[in-house]
């Protein structure tokens, strides 16, 4: 499983919270354009792994290189790296004091020096893409959960990232809204975006993922393409987990 030219290199990474080992000696390499789905039981370290990739969590040991930047090099400007890596959270985290358009344009304007006109034009294109072009001028509280999450995706895309990270993007949604968000994600995947997705949506994993990673107790227990993963899991822990949820 040695990678050709990975855009994300997580090597031998461990992460402790006080006494809890959230990650133990994890390796993960992701190719440009690859879609990786991470699954595993609660507390297995999925979120922690994802969050180390843009250094929302600092690691205790190991190294992480994203798009050629060593995240722990003293010379690296972490804010620059984060512009390359979009992130979508379970709880959306839209900025409630700005309109949808404001949410989408603030970062490009303040961080990339775009003009307001450019930024708004792009924002409207992105809203079109996520299917809510008519919501540009409303405030986030007025949106349904599914709409909010689609805005959150558009906001991350507005920085034209090379990588997108998703941490259970549909877990806080009512069932009837999950589909609309997954559709947007699937479309993004078809466009060739590099994606790392933590999710419990097995249907999505099966259809979209190039590779599925199963974590347990802070370790990667098994990884395989979905066809093999769902039909012939090797590790007993994986088998048990799949039994429970399918």
């Amino acid at each position, binding site marked *: 499983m040695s990678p050709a030219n990975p855009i994300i290199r997580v090597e031998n990474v461990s992460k402790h919270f006080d006494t809890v080992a959230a990650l133990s000696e994890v390796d993960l390499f992701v190719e440009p354009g690859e879609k990786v789905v991470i699954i595993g039981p609660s507390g297995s370290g999925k979120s922690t792994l994802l969050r180390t990739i843009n250094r929302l969590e600092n690691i205790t040991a190991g190294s992480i290189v994203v798009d050629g930047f060593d995240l722990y090099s003293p010379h690296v400007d972490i*804010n620059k790296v*984060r*512009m390359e*890596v979009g992130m979508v*959270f379970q*709880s959306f985290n839209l900025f409630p004091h700005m309109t949808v358009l404001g949410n989408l344009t603030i*970062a490009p304007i*303040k*961080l990339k020096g775009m003009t307001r006109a450019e930024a708004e034009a792009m924002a409207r294109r992105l809203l079109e893409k996520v299917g809510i072009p008519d919501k540009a001028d409303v405030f986030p509280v007025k949106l349904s959960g599914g709409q909010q999450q689609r805005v*959150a995706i558009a906001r991350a895309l507005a920085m034209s990232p090379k990588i997108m990270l998703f941490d259970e993007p549909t877990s806080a949604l009512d069932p009837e809204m999950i589909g609309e968000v997954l559709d947007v994600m699937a479309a993004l995947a078809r466009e060739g975006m590099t994606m790392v997705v933590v999710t419990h949506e097995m249907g999505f994993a099966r259809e979209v993922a190039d590779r599925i990673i199963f974590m347990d107790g802070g370790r990667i227990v098994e990884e395989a393409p979905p066809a093999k993963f769902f039909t012939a899991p090797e590790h007993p822990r994986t088998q048990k987990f799949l039994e429970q949820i399918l």
Partner: protein
Amino acid sequence: MNENAKRSQDIKPVVIDIGDGAAIPSRGDRGLVSAWKLSFFFAVATLAYLLIFRPTPYVRLIKFLPDGILVTFQVTIFSILLAIVIGLLTGLGRISRNRAINLVASTYVEIVRGVPLLVQLFYIYYALGQFVKVPDMVAAVVAMSFCYGAYMGEVFRAGILSISHGQTEAARSLGFNRWQTMYYVILPQAWRTILPPVGNEFIALLKDTSLVSILAVSDLLRRGREFASESFLYFETYTMVALIYLIITLILSKLVSIMEERLSRHVTR
């Protein structure tokens, strides 16, 4: 043990913290709303009664006091503005991860809250007066805002901490640095939480400006004391002074409560 059960049986660690401002008649507290009305009516009616039916000495008194009221407001307004600036810096320092900055800000808060305002006023006014020469108004404003800056710092700190951490994470993951996140994302949301207690501190500060009368600043109370010790009309003078303070703080606390309501309505726009 079952989670629900645990929660319902536990004594919640409620933290009670009664501010030093006026009692804000918010809508949830009906007793206070009627009490506000009663107090206001009582204060205004008493004032009117005294002025109309006992013009001597009350009319003379009320002519004597207005410049004192003006000074009281001047000191209050300048002090609160300066205190807000100090408070913002202190609040940011208190949540800073830089240990040195954090310690400086926390120590400032600890010391200021540990020494009576009156002693601080004396100290800043007289003791430090030996080293720097400043007009008395300026000294009073500096002393008041030095003190209130510490309290205001706690208000800012609490306001900033009240914004969910997810907001910071979202902003940081877009590439904003720590200060940009504070400026574009956290503070614009925090001010709604911060504004009402700032209003409350304003009222508390207005009341505490009565202490500057001891520094021979001619505020409302000082004017009253001058009048009383000259005319020997202690009862009448302090009745009047108390009524005026009461009316001012009642009006201000009503304004704060209106502001609180507006802001809480705005939350859902």
